[in-house]
């Protein structure tokens, strides 16, 4: 079902539930994975994904079609993720690296990553990025989102996004290289 048809049916109380069900089915995986890459843990991602769709339901009636529906949903998901991570730090008085360490520990427990050394280093390097830069990196590297669309999601200029992405790539490469050197040195020492 096309977005405009979902929106038209959502306006009609008789077909509202059906239209929203279609919307969830259409976008659930993209929203889930967008959130999951930010919070790593499945349980947190599950809660946040549901919160995102509850907000979509709540505000979809006010949605102005000057933006794409998916861009709008992505923006809600992004704000939920950033708000979640911010409140997590505030709640537990954790500095940046401690939340990063907590996410890294969850990453190490993920069976899809744990067995692949270089992939684990890469994911840890991504987790070391500041939240907003990590978000930019994920949108570009994994979701292959065009910069123009990213600008709509994040409310940041295209130029700033390009700079942020390239800076993120450089930091990731430096971290993984340094981790490789440390690993090589420790291997050599052994």
């Amino acid at each position, binding site marked *: 079902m096309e977005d405009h048809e979902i929106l038209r049916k959502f306006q009609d109380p008789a077909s509202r539930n059906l239209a*929203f069900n279609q919307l969830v089915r259409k976008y*659930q995986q993209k929203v889930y994975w967008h959130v999951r890459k930010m919070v790593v843990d499945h349980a947190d991602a599950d809660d946040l994904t*549901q919160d995102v769709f509850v907000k979509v339901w*709540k505000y979809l009636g006010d949605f102005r079609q000057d933006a794409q529906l998916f861009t709008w949903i992505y923006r809600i998901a992004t704000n939920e993720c950033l708000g979640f991570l911010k409140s997590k730090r505030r709640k537990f008085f954790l500095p940046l690296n401690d939340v990063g360490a907590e996410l890294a520990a969850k990453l190490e427990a993920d069976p899809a990553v744990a067995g692949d050394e270089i992939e684990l280093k890469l994911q840890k390097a991504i987790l070391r990025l500041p939240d907003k830069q990590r978000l930019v990196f994920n949108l570009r590297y994994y979701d292959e989102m065009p910069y123009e669309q990213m600008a709509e999601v994040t409310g940041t200029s295209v130029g700033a996004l390009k700079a942020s992405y390239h800076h993120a790539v450089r930091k990731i490469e430096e971290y993984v290289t340094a981790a490789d050197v440390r690993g090589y040195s420790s291997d050599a020492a052994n």
Partner: protein
Amino acid sequence: MKPPFRLDQHPRRWPQPLSAPPAGYFEQLPTRVMAQVAAPACRPLLPSWLRSVSASVRTGLASTLLLGTFAASLWLGVEPVQPLSATSLGDVPRAELLDYLTSEVHLDMTDLAELPTRPLGITNHYLRPSAPELADAFDAQPTDEAALL
């Protein structure tokens, strides 16, 4: 020595680098979401127009309403003192009036006994004697001191 890591040469895990969610998760998620959004189908606490205004405006409205209610209750609570007219007392049956005065005000029948009133003409005449009448009255009084003892 290992060469520096290059992201563009690393095989990207696409579309997702992390492990998949539990089996059947995406089949159940729409049902769970629908259960959440369908639950508050009951009537909302605030009307839609009130929900559309900001919290500060709502607070202002609530304060004004509270103040208005207070002022109205004060205004309506002060009853005007109406004069007790003779007409309204005259409408009360005599037996009820008597019962009220003896039971509530605790007056007895002696207090309520009707005193005979003197005719007004006699009083006026009695209290306003003429000069000759006064002179006659004084002359009629005994003048010797023995009569005063």
